[in-house]
């Protein structure tokens, strides 16, 4: 597995592994193997969905993220929280308190993605009208879905919408704004995203659509939660704070359905959970869904509220979100013409096009590949077909494939051990 050109936001701590094989079985792209008691994964196949981190009881997979200390070197710090952060606290904690708490732990400013989300909803509606020849257009919001398409569904890459994610655009605008306002260099400003999942860290470290992200680092929601909780309690007990009402609940795209709502429910189909997303992508490839305009696809069930870094149960988070929307929400106040004018001058677009990912099978000879496949089928026919995973591969089929590639030995199959 010498394909180390792909960045992934998790490390493997081999010593913790008890060989339960939950990761092997749960990986949606069948990238993980436990051969010779060692957990390995195909770097090119991994789409950073976080299933392995979720499933492993021993925490063998450790997400790599930044801490506050790592990000102290900047002169001005901007926190860019995913709106998932606000709904971790519940309706009794107003968004203004969370923002103040972020400032108390050392951030100079707090930026929100909600405004760009609302704008992009309009921009995307306009984009759909401009490009009737591509149907359906698939959201490029979830980094895992983008990578899944790059790896397993490369023919659907042209279906990805070319609009950059709100966090990148917000980060870019905030960076430029404060650099100008404070007379600082752009790289003296640190924009730190507060992320619900490791996939977004990967998309910051190795963006699919640009050379360098506008965000400098990412801290998990749960780490920030632990840091600001004492501050939140302090502020709550300290009574009123100035212009608390100024801050409303920024409804963004973290939850399944919000994006569709921005684009228009009548035009969008929402799907979440990586297996379900794969099913829909399969249907798109067979041209089954040509009558749908837009697909909102998220790798985590329910959307980002189910990210690995969330504190609250996704159902509780959803409940909180609905309540907060009611209490602190405000209807978006955006001039449509302005958004369309910005769309026309390329304000929202990806800086570079997303391309299919080069995997281990990209440069192959069809003849050789058919030979290998026949070999695989011959081996597969002799296996038990129980998909027990005890060999270290997820299914008998993947094991047969590994054997045909010379990456596994047939004697690793327990049904052949004497």
């Amino acid at each position, binding site marked *: 597995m010498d394909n180390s050109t792909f960045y992934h936001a998790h490390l493997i701590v081999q010593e913790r592994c008890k060989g339960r094989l939950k990761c092997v079985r749960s990986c949606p792209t069948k990238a993980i193997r436990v051969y010779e008691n060692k957990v390995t994964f195909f770097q090119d196949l991994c789409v950073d969905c976080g299933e392995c981190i979720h499933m492993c009881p021993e925490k063998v997979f450790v997400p790599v993220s930044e801490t506050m200390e790592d990000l102290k070197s900047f002169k001005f710090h901007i926190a860019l929280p995913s709106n998932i952060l606000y709904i971790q606290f519940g309706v009794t904690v107003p968004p203004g308190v969370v923002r103040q708490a972020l400032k108390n732990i050392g951030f100079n400013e707090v930026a929100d993605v909600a405004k760009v989300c609302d704008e992009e909803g309009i921009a995307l509606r306009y984009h759909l009208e401009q490009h009737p020849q591509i149907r359906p257009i698939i959201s490029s919001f979830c980094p895992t879905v983008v990578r899944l398409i790059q790896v*397993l569904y*490369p*023919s659907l890459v042209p279906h990805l919408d070319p609009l950059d994610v709100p966090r990148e655009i917000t980060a870019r605008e905030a960076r430029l704004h404060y650099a100008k306002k404070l007379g600082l260099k752009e790289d003296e400003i640190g924009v730190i995203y507060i992320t619900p999942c490791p996939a977004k860290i990967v998309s910051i470290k190795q963006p699919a659509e640009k050379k360098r992200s506008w965000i400098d680092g990412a801290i998990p929601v749960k780490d920030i939660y632990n840091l600001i909780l004492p501050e939140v309690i302090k502020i709550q007990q300290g009574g009123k704070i100035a212009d608390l009402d100024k801050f409303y609940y920024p409804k963004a795209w973290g939850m399944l359905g919000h994006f569709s709502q921005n684009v228009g429910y009548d035009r969008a189909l929402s799907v979440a959970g990586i297996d379900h997303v794969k099913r829909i992508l*399969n*249907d798109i*490839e*067979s*041209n*089954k869904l040509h*009558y749908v305009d837009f697909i909102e696809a998220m790798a985590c069930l329910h959307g980002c509220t189910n990210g690995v870094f969330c504190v609250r149960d996704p159902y509780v988070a959803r409940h909180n979100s609905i309540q907060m929307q009611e209490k602190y929400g405000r209807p978006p106040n955006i001039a449509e013409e302005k958004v369309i004018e910005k769309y026309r001058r390329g304000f929202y677009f990806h800086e570079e096009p997303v391309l*299919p990912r080069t995997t281990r*099978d*990209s440069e*192959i*000879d*069809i*003849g*050789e*590949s*058919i*030979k*290998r*496949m*026949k*070999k695989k*089928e*011959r*081996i597969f026919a*002799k296996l038990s077909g129980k998909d027990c995973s005890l060999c270290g591969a997820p299914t008998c089929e993947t094991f047969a*494939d590994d*054997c*045909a*590639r*010379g990456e596994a*030995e*047939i*004697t690793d199959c327990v049904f*052949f051990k*004497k």
Partner: protein
Amino acid sequence: MQDSEGFNLEIGQIKEALKADVLVCRDRLKSKVSGIYASDLMSDVLAYGREGACLLTGLNTVQAVISSHMADLKAIVFLRGKKPGPDIRKFAEEKGIVVLTTKADMFDACIKIARADGHLRPTNGIMMRGKEKNITSHEFFVDGKDFASAGLVSTGIKTILKEIGYNMQLIRRVAISTYEGEMNVVMHAEKATVTLTASDSEIRVVINDKGKGIPDIQEAMVPGFSTATEEQRAMGFGAGMGLPNMKKNSDEINVTSEVGKGTKLEMRFFIKD
């Protein structure tokens, strides 16, 4: 030396050439082998051993027999006088693999067999591997009126083609055409078999159904022509674009039909560089 057309030795003749002893499956000496594969590396045997061949190896472990069984080899010759233990013999006997043992080493054994087969020519290397045809074939079944599982076959075919690694746009064309064909079966026929044949020069999908047949194929090819029922249309099918879509997406399409019996639809997709 796995030239299936040129190779013409029985296991018994190999035994003679190597002055070998037969340990297991003495009753199979009349059986012909498709070639010889000599290696101590079992992953190579799995990867390159030809079906029906005879393995020459110095690896005296059960892995040799398991790998041979996996690769569908007919016989194993253990070299340099190695004699396999009872567990190996038992496994080979169960799987019907002939086991021989000889005093010759690997190089020696190869030459002796090559001489016996008349392969040894001064100007020609003896370890020529014959050309294996690179074709793979798969069969699927579709049930008529089963709207819930419509699309499973095209998804299955797509998975295989992706695994082989064809151009993505080509795979997409095959998937779309197969899905349309599958839908036609679901809507109009009782059942069908779908055969996928894939090689390095073309992909071929044949859908052979049992059903009412098409009375006028010319007419059926016209975009918009449809015999779908109101119910089917209500479900979003039957726009009369099935056959035209298949024609558009395939490089060659061939439809033959017999009214009251069924329809055979053959689609070919050529692989261009």
